[in-house]
């Protein structure tokens, strides 16, 4: 089992210590972990050209760290998006990363429980988790809206939302969610 953390926190974010503790805990349990520090990566926002589906299927035409995002996400069993909540939603840095992993799925549509979604390109996709750092203006309604949207996004990416946790939650609890999923 491999757990990947997409860390979109700043260098002084409360995300960093909890991610460190979580990785220590998981390593102690024999689980492999990896982390991508998004602020140190270079990837532009998706421009919506769909070339990753119809020209170079499976691969974005941009030559930047988008390939790294796709490869690392695909080769994980659990991907945790760790992000501050800014203006009521995870960061643009995290959202731009999420937009850039659509080469992992297939353009073809299929019926999933009575709704249109995309088909798989690969056999297997990781479970998604969300680790959020609240800001001064974040309230419970924001967390509910984020949770509902990410449940949809996970479904759309052939994944499933395993958990939504805050940086104030316990590392043990989070590790258990991952291990027991």
């Amino acid at each position: 089992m491999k757990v990947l953390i997409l860390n979109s926190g700043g260098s002084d974010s409360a995300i960093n210590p909890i991610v460190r503790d979580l990785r220590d805990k998981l390593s102690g349990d024999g689980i492999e972990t990896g982390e991508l520090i998004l602020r140190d990566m270079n990837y532009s926002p998706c421009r919506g050209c769909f070339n990753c589906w119809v020209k170079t299927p499976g691969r974005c035409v941009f030559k930047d760290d988008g390939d790294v995002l796709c490869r690392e996400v695909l080769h994980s069993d659990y991907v945790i998006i760790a992000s501050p909540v800014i203006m009521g939603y995870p960061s643009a840095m995290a959202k731009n990363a999420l937009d850039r992993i659509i080469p992992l799925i297939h353009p073809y549509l299929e019926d999933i429980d009575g709704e249109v979604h995309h088909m798989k390109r690969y056999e297997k996709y990781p479970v998604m988790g969300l680790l959020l750092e609240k800001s001064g203006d974040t309230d419970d309604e924001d967390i509910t809206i984020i949770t509902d949207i990410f449940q949809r996004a996970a479904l759309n990416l052939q994944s499933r939302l395993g958990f939504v946790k805050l940086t104030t939650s316990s590392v043990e609890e989070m590790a258990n969610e991952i291990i027991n999923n």
Partner: protein
Amino acid sequence: MKLSIINGSPRGASGNTEKLLEHFINGFSETAGNSTEKFYLIKERPDFEKLKGVFLDAEILMIAFPLYVDAMPGSVKEFFESLEPLKNKRPDLRLMFVIQNGFPETYHNRFVERYCEKLAKRLGCIYEGSICKGGCEGLTVQPPQLVEKVFSGFHNVGKSFGETGKLSPEVLSKLARPEHLTPENMKLVIPMVNNFLWDGLLNKNGAMDKKFDKPFE
């Protein structure tokens, strides 16, 4: 009424948002005295200085964007973040959204619609509502009568808003149909999109034999 519009599509003026906006604007402009101005978000990143100015000056601001992974595109989120210092500076600003998506059902937009309503509140503005519409990808390969329905739908919403200054729930829900697909429609739509839209594009690019490639396996 003066309506300021931000087209938030990463495809800028060449995307679907632009086409829908054109029809909305035509309807809106039928009422004498109404006027519009339009900006392209993608051209203004990453500092969005011009758009912040628009936010500070506008009478009514309409932000339009395509659904990306069930929410606003990352570049649109960048813009929302840039507005944080302007919270509560425009209590009189009337804010509205256009959210359109590729899948045929409008339902996919309903989740980020809640975010948009909350965003208006968070910015301390007046929320006028969100115009949501599914089935907006591949307008060039859809049957003409379907496309005509989408375009005339946007025209009607624009016209009605231009006349009354309000987004009527009836007009919005009419445009939004279908909210979900019936099983029969699902069986029709899925092969149509796969064969005409995706295979059409794959063929055009000579990439048909690579369509199931797994480059990162």
